[in-house]
């Protein structure tokens, strides 16, 4: 009997996996069908501008097009993204991209970072639980700059960003006035940083600067904020089949909304914007 149950269980799990794979496959398929459909309609209506825009959008995803360099398409795209951002009822100040997949694609992450900023998000953090993005921080930086050029055109004066690695390091490269900040985080920034803050507090108790009774939630919060210098993420978009935060900033995700996408590979702007729309629609009661 136990054998039979085991067999049925395996079958059940296989079925669920197949269902999941089909859904995510259909998602991609439907998107391209829809894209083609629109492209044809537009072509039929003989509207040259939107058609060229479409080509560029596709090219942007493939990152290999000459038409992409022309500033006009990039400009209209940028204003479309910006107006998308304005159209939302609320926009997160800080968005976390958590990749729970084994294979990482720098280009797709860079695309998303650029989209987030184009929509008007001020802080973007990128996380994987192996800390690979953090190790290859400079690679990711280069990719972001490249995608910024590809997607937003040559004129990047409005979208300069400050790339920080770990709170402790000095800002690297091109820090120009502008606000958007990209943070590359690893598990070290999670529990480990809470432990460090705790150790710091205990040291000052050891030196009799504080009494143990003085320690409060806000005190710890201030300490943890100092080392990161970023607000709590309001939205985390998690990529991959694993339903877990995998150690992403435990202290900071108190009120974070989680949105799950099947994969970060070939992720489209619409996927990301869908997550932002979901965030914009939710209402928090804060205990009340």
């Amino acid at each position, binding site marked *: *009997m*136990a054998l039979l*149950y*085991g067999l*049925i*269980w395996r079958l*059940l*799990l296989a079925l*669920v*996996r197949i269902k999941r794979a089909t859904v995510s496959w259909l998602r991609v398929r439907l998107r391209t069908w829809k894209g083609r459909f629109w492209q044809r309609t537009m072509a039929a209506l003989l509207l040259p501008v939107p058609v060229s825009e479409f080509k560029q959008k596709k090219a942007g995803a493939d990152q290999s097009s000459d038409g992409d360099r022309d500033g006009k398409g990039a400009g209209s795209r940028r204003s479309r993204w910006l107006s998308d951002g304005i159209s939302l009822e609320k926009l997160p100040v800080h968005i976390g991209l958590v990749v*729970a997949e084994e294979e990482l694609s720098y280009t797709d992450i860079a695309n998303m970072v650029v989209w987030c900023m184009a929509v008007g998000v001020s802080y973007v953090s990128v996380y994987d*639980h*192996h800390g690979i993005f953090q190790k290859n921080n400079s690679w990711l930086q280069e990719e972001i700059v490249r995608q910024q050029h590809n997607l937003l055109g040559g004129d990047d004066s409005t979208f300069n960003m400050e790339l920080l690695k770990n709170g402790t390091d000095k800002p690297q490269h091109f820090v120009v006035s502008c606000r958007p900040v990209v943070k590359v985080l690893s*598990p070290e920034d*999670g*529990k*480990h940083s*809470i*432990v460090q*803050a*705790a*150790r710091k*507090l*205990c*040291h000052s*108790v*050891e030196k009799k600067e*504080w*009494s*143990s*009774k003085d*320690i*409060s*939630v806000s*005190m*710890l*919060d201030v300490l943890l904020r100092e080392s990161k210098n970023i607000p709590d993420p309001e939205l985390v978009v998690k990529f991959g*089949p*694993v*339903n*877990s*935060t*995998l*150690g*992403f900033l*435990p*202290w900071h*995700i*108190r*009120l*974070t*909304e*989680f*949105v799950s996408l099947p994969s970060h590979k070939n992720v489209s702007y619409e996927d990301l914007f869908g997550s932002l729309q979901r965030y914009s629609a*939710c209402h*928090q009661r*804060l*205990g*009340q």
Partner: protein
Amino acid sequence: MSWIREGELNLLEKISANILMSGPMPKHVAFIMDGNRRFARKKKLERHDGHMQGFNKLAETLRWCKHLNIPEVTVYAFSIENFKRSKEEVDGLLDLARQKFERLLEEQENLEKHGVCIRVLGDLNMLPLDLQQVIAKAVVMTKNHNKCFLNVCFAYTSRYEITNAVREMAWGVEQGLIKASDVSEALLSECLYSNNSPNPDLLIRTSGEVRLSDFLLWQTSHSCLVFQSVLWPEYSFWNLCEAIVQYQLNHKSIQKARELHREEQALQQLEADCACIAEHLQHQGNGKPADAQRRQEALQHYTVTREERVQDFLQALKHKRDTFFTNLCSETVLT
């Protein structure tokens, strides 16, 4: 209504349970029982009745968990943030809790039969004294039971819990039991309210909200999170099964991530120990570098003494917490 429901699963449920149980099962499930008020609104009931139905659903869920061989359940009953609600509702919730814990005391025999151990996680000092006493009685009465465990988070938020753990460690430093350099991830985990439980394998939140709302942030960093849209009073056996299937799909990758995290944690501990030793040796040898063998010996010695220190501190902490509960109980005897 009682906390413990008797009764078997029906045939279909039993078969499904058996099928599920041939896969890896979560040992510890945490619930955010959200949606009681929305349920009341939907059914045009009083808010209070919504909460009441929510409690009944908890009793039923505990029965399902028992049949599914899930030995430990943690529930978010009352957050510190909930004190912000209207006085009427807060009083209603506290009354409900009082009533339910009193009821629990009457069920002693049944609890003993099933071996149910009840723990309450949170800062009891925030509650009215009489409620504190009833809770303490229930906790002390069931503390030696060891078949199933129910952790009720009451006057709880995770940030508060972590801060309290830091406060306890600072207390240990003040008492001279540990040094500030002994503070580590493992020690912090041991100082949390949940120190007696393994981390939850599965966290379920109902009513379609997709956030943790300050619940077990530390403990669920490598747990499977399942968000379900059903309102808590409408939660069914099949919803629970669905969540468990989700867990089973994630099981392997989460296990791997946990393993990775454990390795990192051990490495960090070793690094911290080495740093302490380096400082110590430099101090001793007047700045001369020590040879490898001496360093190795010193490291071993240091690790052993650190572990002893930490164990003593944890003993003291446990004693402090136990005394808090027994004192509360004896106060009731006096009055």
